[in-house]
Every structure is written in structure tokens, then in C-alpha cells.
């Protein structure tokens, strides 16, 4: 008895399956690739979580008061391991009042004007500390009418999507004491 075949031919079915697979890959890839890229961007700071630290060896990290102003001096050191150091383009410094209800932020980038009222201690050109670079530790001055209790430092790393770079999580913080 002759059976009459019905439905698609093998060739057409194979083509349809291949097309379906390719479409599936394109659709899923279109979602997965940006998702993975964004996730990797969020981990870009992982290498720099302890890149900067406040350095006590230079004898600062304190404030003095004169003429109604508080004059802060603090020193920042880059970690000894210079891997990926070329990715660090600057640092943010954040001052916090007692209780953390008031804050002020300053930004330092090598060779750029410092934003936020911070100045280099010792008349050095605007720079950031860098292992293997010109300075492994640098000090900064800051004057304000506000009495801040804490200062925090945040690395800024290169970001292909943002010329200003990406500000990473806090590297270190210290309580400011009165200079002796």
C-alpha cells in the first residue's frame, strides 16, 4: 500500500530548523552581549578597590584652624603593586562632617586643574600618586569654613564610555585630627 506523505520535505524542515536556530542565537546574543558587557563594566573597579590609601608616614592627615577657616592636609599613597596602574586617571576626595550630613567633593587628575578647592601641598603640579610613577605618595591641602571629621578617597579609572572616567568605590577613609 502506498503511503501518501504529507507535511514538509526534509530539506525545507532542515532549513527552517537552521533558520530558527540562527534567529534564536541572534536574539539571545543581542540581549546577552550588552548584558555581559554592562556586567563586566560594573566589575572594572574590582582591581582598584584598595588602590589608594591615606599615608601617615608624611606626618599629615590633620587640620589646623586659623581666621575662621579649617586648613586640612592629608597624604595619599598608591598601592605598591603597579599592575593596571595606567588605568587610574585621577582620584576623588570626599570630606564628611560629623554624622555625615554634610559633604564636599574634590577631584584631582594628572595634568588637569584640580576641581573642588583642593591644592597640591608643596607646590607640585596637579598629580596623583602612582607606583612606579613620579610620586608614590602625595599630599593635598584643603581649606574650608566647615569642620569636617572624615575624608575618603575614591579612584577614578578610564572609561571608554565617559571621558571623565569612572569613579570607583571608596579605597580608604580616615578621621581627621587636629595638627600638633
Amino acid at each position, binding site marked *: 500500500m502506498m503511503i501518501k506523505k504529507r507535511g514538509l520535505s*526534509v530539506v525545507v524542515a532542515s532549513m527552517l530548523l537552521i533558520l530558527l536556530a540562527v534567529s534564536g542565537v541572534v536574539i539571545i546574543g543581542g540581549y546577552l552581549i550588552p548584558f555581559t558587557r554592562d556586567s*563586566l563594566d560594573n566589575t572594572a573597579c574590582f*582591581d582598584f578597590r584598595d588602590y589608594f590609601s591615606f599615608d601617615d*608616614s*608624611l606626618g*599629615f592627615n590633620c587640620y589646623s584652624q586659623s581666621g575662621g577657616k579649617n586648613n586640612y*592636609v592629608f*597624604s595619599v*599613597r598608591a598601592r*605598591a*603593586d*603597579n*599592575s593596571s596602574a595606567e588605568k587610574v586617571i585621577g582620584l576623588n576626595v570626599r570630606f564628611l562632617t560629623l554624622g555625615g550630613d554634610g559633604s564636599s567633593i574634590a577631584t584631582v587628575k594628572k595634568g588637569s586643574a584640580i576641581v573642588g578647592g583642593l591644592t597640591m*601641598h*608643596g607646590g*607640585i603640579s596637579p598629580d596623583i*600618586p602612582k*607606583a*612606579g*610613577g*613620579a*610620586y*608614590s*605618595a*602625595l*599630599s593635598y591641602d584643603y581649606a574650608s569654613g566647615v569642620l569636617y571629621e572624615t575624608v575618603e578617597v575614591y579612584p577614578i579609572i578610564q572609561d571608554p564610555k565617559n571621558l571623565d572616567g569612572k569613579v570607583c568605590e571608596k579605597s580608604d577613609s580616615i578621621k581627621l585630627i587636629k595638627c600638633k
Partner: protein
Amino acid sequence: MGLIKKRGISPVVATVLLISLALVLAMIIFWWARSTIKEQELKFGAPVGEACKDIKFNADISGENIRINNLGNVPIYGVEIRRKISGAVERIGSATFGTLQSGAGTVKKIEFAPGKEVASDMIAVPIILGETARYTKPFICPEEFGEPV
């Protein structure tokens, strides 16, 4: 019962295809992970920074040369010369020796950073070689392991 004509690929071919697919996927993931995840540099089987605390050496500067004696058990690759100035630690220069073994001493010319020269209150910070399975890389120890020169 009539003869049923089997269609499609054989189990052997299907198995080979599946294994090939799995291998290709594994290779892609391995290649991606290797390029993404940083290899840790080691010294004596521990993170390279751990070896810095075992370094013992002394250093003297004479003219533009530095003399180093390695008194510890960690081979020293070089030294970075720094000095403390007002509110900063600046890099004066460096000298590399290849690998200065335990008990050995050497004299090398300092490669000064642009505009820098021998000054007072300098310290020599040791540089050691970190190792991975594929390469070695100089590692500058933290300044606390430096010696005055």
C-alpha cells in the same frame, strides 16, 4: 509489520557532534576566561607581595652608582630609589641587577628619572620578580621594606 525506514543521523554521528559542540564551547569559555581573569603573580608559591617581608639587604650610593648586598633569602631584581620631600615621596630613579641571589653583592649605575639626581634622605625600595605560569614581572615592594641609602 512492515520495514520502518530509519531517517536522520546515526547515534554515533550525533554523539560525535554533541561532544564536538561541548569541546568547542569549553574552548571558547576557557579562552575568554583566560583573557579576562588576571593571573596572580607568585613568589615561592605565595602572592609576590608576601615575599617582601623576608627581604634583607643594605645599599650604599657612591656617585651615580648604587651598591647592594643581598643579606636575605629572596633574590632581588632591582631597587627603586625614592626620597621624601615636602609632603610627597618622589621617585629619583632605579637600578636593576637581573637577579641578585642570596649572599651576593653588586654595583650598578642608577638610571635617574628625568631631572633627578642624587640627594639626601633617599631610600632604596626592593623590586622582586613575580612569577606566573607564562611570564615573570617585576614587583615593587611597599616602601616600608625599603632601606635608607
